[in-house]
């Protein structure tokens, strides 16, 4: 969690979402349940916190703007101070790792779903409590897409008619996974991706090199959170044999693209092995910075990242063969992409993109890593042996 919560004013690139929240609040017609829908890492949680801080603030700042009154937290009242100290009693975050704090969940493994016990004990049973300080109590459910069917059903009654002082915010990256009954009880606020330029600036401010920053800002499809993780990840293992010092994910990507440029059918097995090793390096590095995540999850993230790198290379190749050289993701290695484009016409590249997506699904389907990478490379080389029709 961030130490200090931003005020609403400081939230960037989500003007539309903040605007519609503000308008509802200003008109006194705030809904009791919201879905903040959008990809990971675009600031939904941050906005939810800032919004909660504003609702709980005891001396709200009102500023007149052309669109209406803009409400914001003052940052000075006891409520805001408590909020910044992460100890506000009326602001409740609900996330899957809370499981170990439930009555019976002490020694259970970190879950992959958001368990029903967490929802029941931290939301449904507590929602009857009146707010302790102000006029609202705010509940934020993180990763609501990971609620399983039981958990979502348990929420239904609460979401339909919560106590009047309640605001429930569901942060959800895949609204399709929510039951229609949940969706119809909430107001959905879409959060768009963050501008490429903005991510670029933030990354550069973090000390990421220009070319790497340019790559990640395109790669992450507007998810600042993702971009920050990948750009700052240090893949340097201590016992690494060929220790070059400060190997980043970006270096791996550069190597990959060079290899892809020269890729021939005969290199398949070798390259697949290299992909597997790189994926392992990445997941090992990820494991060091994240807590409470299962190794399977880490491995999958590493594998998916490698596949996505290939994906963007192919996608860029498709653009080039269509004569579009603007806004490429791999603009730093344009020669390598062009080499790839020579082998793939636009139609073939488009086909390949959907094949690559199927491989990403394979990762979640627990298919052998070697098979995935080899299948992927065979597809790239133009052979469809392994592809199911």
């Amino acid at each position, binding site marked *: 969690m961030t130490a200090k919560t931003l005020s609403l004013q400081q939230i960037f690139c989500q003007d539309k979402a903040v605007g519609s929240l503000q308008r509802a609040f200003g008109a006194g017609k705030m809904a009791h349940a919201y879905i903040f829908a959008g990809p990971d890492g675009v600031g939904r949680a941050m906005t939810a916190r800032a919004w909660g801080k504003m609702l709980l603030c005891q001396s709200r700042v009102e500023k007149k703007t052309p669109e209406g009154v803009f409400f914001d937290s003052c940052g000075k009242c006891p409520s805001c101070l408590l909020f910044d100290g992460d100890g506000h009693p009326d602001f409740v975050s609900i996330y899957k790792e809370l499981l170990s704090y439930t009555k019976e969940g002490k020694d259970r493994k970190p879950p992959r779903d958001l368990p029903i016990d967490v929802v029941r004990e931290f939301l449904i049973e507590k929602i009857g409590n009146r707010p302790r300080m102000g006029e609202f109590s705010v509940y934020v459910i993180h990763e609501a897409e990971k609620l399983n069917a039981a958990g979502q059903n348990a929420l239904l009654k609460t979401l339909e008619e919560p106590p009047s002082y309640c605001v429930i915010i569901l942060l959800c990256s895949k609204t399709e996974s929510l039951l229609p009954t949940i969706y119809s009880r909430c*107001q959905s*606020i*879409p959060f*768009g991706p963050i501008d490429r330029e903005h991510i670029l600036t933030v990354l550069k401010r973090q000390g990421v090199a220009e070319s790497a920053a340019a790559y990640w800002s395109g790669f992450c499809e507007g998810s600042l959170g993702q971009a920050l993780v990948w750009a700052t990840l240090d893949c340097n293992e201590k016992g690494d044999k060929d220790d070059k010092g400060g190997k980043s994910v970006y270096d791996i990507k550069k190597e990959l693209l060079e290899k892809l440029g020269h890729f021939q059918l005969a290199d398949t097995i070798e390259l697949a092995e290299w992909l597997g090793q790189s994926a392992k390096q990445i997941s090992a590095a990820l494991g060091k910075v994240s807590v409470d995540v299962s190794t399977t999850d880490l491995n999958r993230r590493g594998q998916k990242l490698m596949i996505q790198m290939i*994906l*963007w290379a192919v*996608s860029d190749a498709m653009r080039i063969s269509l004569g579009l050289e603007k806004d490429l993701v791999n603009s730093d290695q344009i020669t390598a992409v062009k080499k790839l484009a020579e082998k793939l016409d*636009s139609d073939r590249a488009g086909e390949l993109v959907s094949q690559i*997506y199927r491989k990403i699904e394979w990762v979640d389907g627990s298919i052998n890593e070697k098979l995935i990478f080899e299948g992927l490379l065979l597809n790239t080389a133009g052979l469809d042996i392994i592809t199911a029709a």
Partner: protein
Amino acid sequence: MSYTVLARRYRSQTFDDVVGQDVIAQTLKNAIQGGKVAHAYLFCGTRGVGKTTMARILAKSLNCLAAKDATTSPCLKCDSCIAINAGEDIDVVEIDGASNRGIDNIRELRQNAIYRPARARYKIYIVDEVHMLTTEAFNALLKILEEPPAHVKFIFATTEPNKVLPTIQSRCQRFDFASIGPQVIAKQLDAILKIEKITFEPDFLPQLARLANGSMRDALSLLDQLISTGQQPLTAAMLEQLLGRPDAENLNLLIQHIAAADPAQTLKSIEILLNQGQSASQIAESLVEMFRDMMVLKTAGDGTDILLLSCSSATTLNQLSQTFDIPWLVFAITTLERLRWTLRNSETARALLEATLLRLAMSEHFISLDALTEQLRGAGGSIPASADIKKKTIISSGNPPLFQAAAAKTPAVQQPIPSGQTEPGSIGDIWRQLVEKMQAQNSQTGGFLSQARPGQLRNNTLTLRFSSPLALDMIKKKDDQLCSILKDILGREITVQYESAKPEDTAAATQPSAPAPAGARINRQQQEQALSDPAVQMIIRGLSANPVQIDRIEELEPPRHETEETDV
């Protein structure tokens, strides 16, 4: 917060208020009037169609303190009615089946059920979301549900009746709530907006009612969200903007770019939509909807009531749909449906969305064989490449130039050459010699040449007609060779003139022959014969194709004129 959402504020209060469930309301009313109220009801239906509402109304009717007995018109003023509306009556226990799903909860219910109601006639248990009860809990209910005390009534509500045990279902009277039609929703919304004194544009209501997908609550939630913007009048554009739906304008643009096969603009449109906060699957879904509407418009024609469209969107759709034909639309819908499935399972979908839409844009629009022949007849010769409908691929079996070529090769179907200073007697012979010699010199060129038909030989000029532009180009390149062969045959200099075949000619060339049903099975010998046809051979070699199926085409002379579906 003092504001109550519309869906709660405008919850129907009496049987007559309930929208779109007249049959069920009437049945329940009759049961009450006849004193034949069952002890257990099961209300099924999708979200927001009035299950909980109906359950509460039934409870009020049974327990209203103002009436002596169960009534069809509860007073809504007595303590009981008010408490039931708030969901906190002492005798009407509303249970959330999803969070009280265990056997212990049911045991507790059983223990309390035996006590008589405190002030009203019945003790009523409303169990909402009953499908979430565990199997044990359901089973624990069975006995009391079969023969409950006279003062107990059960009302179960669920969205998924299939998860309710059959033993439970057989003990209840089951009512299936239909989803509410868009027209009915629109009417109710109209009434509510009038009470709320909110103005709106005529285009707005049909759009909103459509988005609600048969659920009143969905409609009211959406409406709430719009009202909370504080802007008036409400418009369809606000709806799109606020509810995170791709706005129609940009979608229309995207479709136009796809129609124009413009990759750069297509990508740009996708980017605009994505930057508005739409997820890739939402975009795909909206596109499917648009293509579906276009398909319906094209098939059913204007003025169909299958679609609930506002006037302006109907006009735009109509214009857009001119660019596509029905097979292409079907193709696009299937492609996008498959895409949606993948999108649902992946977090990063942008590249896939782009790739698929680009492929759609670059794909040639399909056209059926019938439409193609129609066009060829009408448009005088060359395929209208610049027409609104994009370049075509034939998806129907067969390949017209191919059997025309076969027809042309058969002396029997030689057409009388139009008169003039010609040598009608010899032209057939000359032609045969020409093709043979050319084939001997260069089999590929010979093959192409065999696709042509000699027009006339006049003033030392031989006219050749080609139905295939490819063959025309190929032969033009070999002009020298052709002339020299002609010189050998005729002993004088001949110039060759090239023409694209006129459709009337090609149509006439296929003489009516003994009828053989199209698609009829043909024997192995006939198949081999068809395969050994030089024209077919050439196609197979030239395109490195594999013959997949050989069918007889009705109008042509069997067994010579078979066409092949080739799989390239």
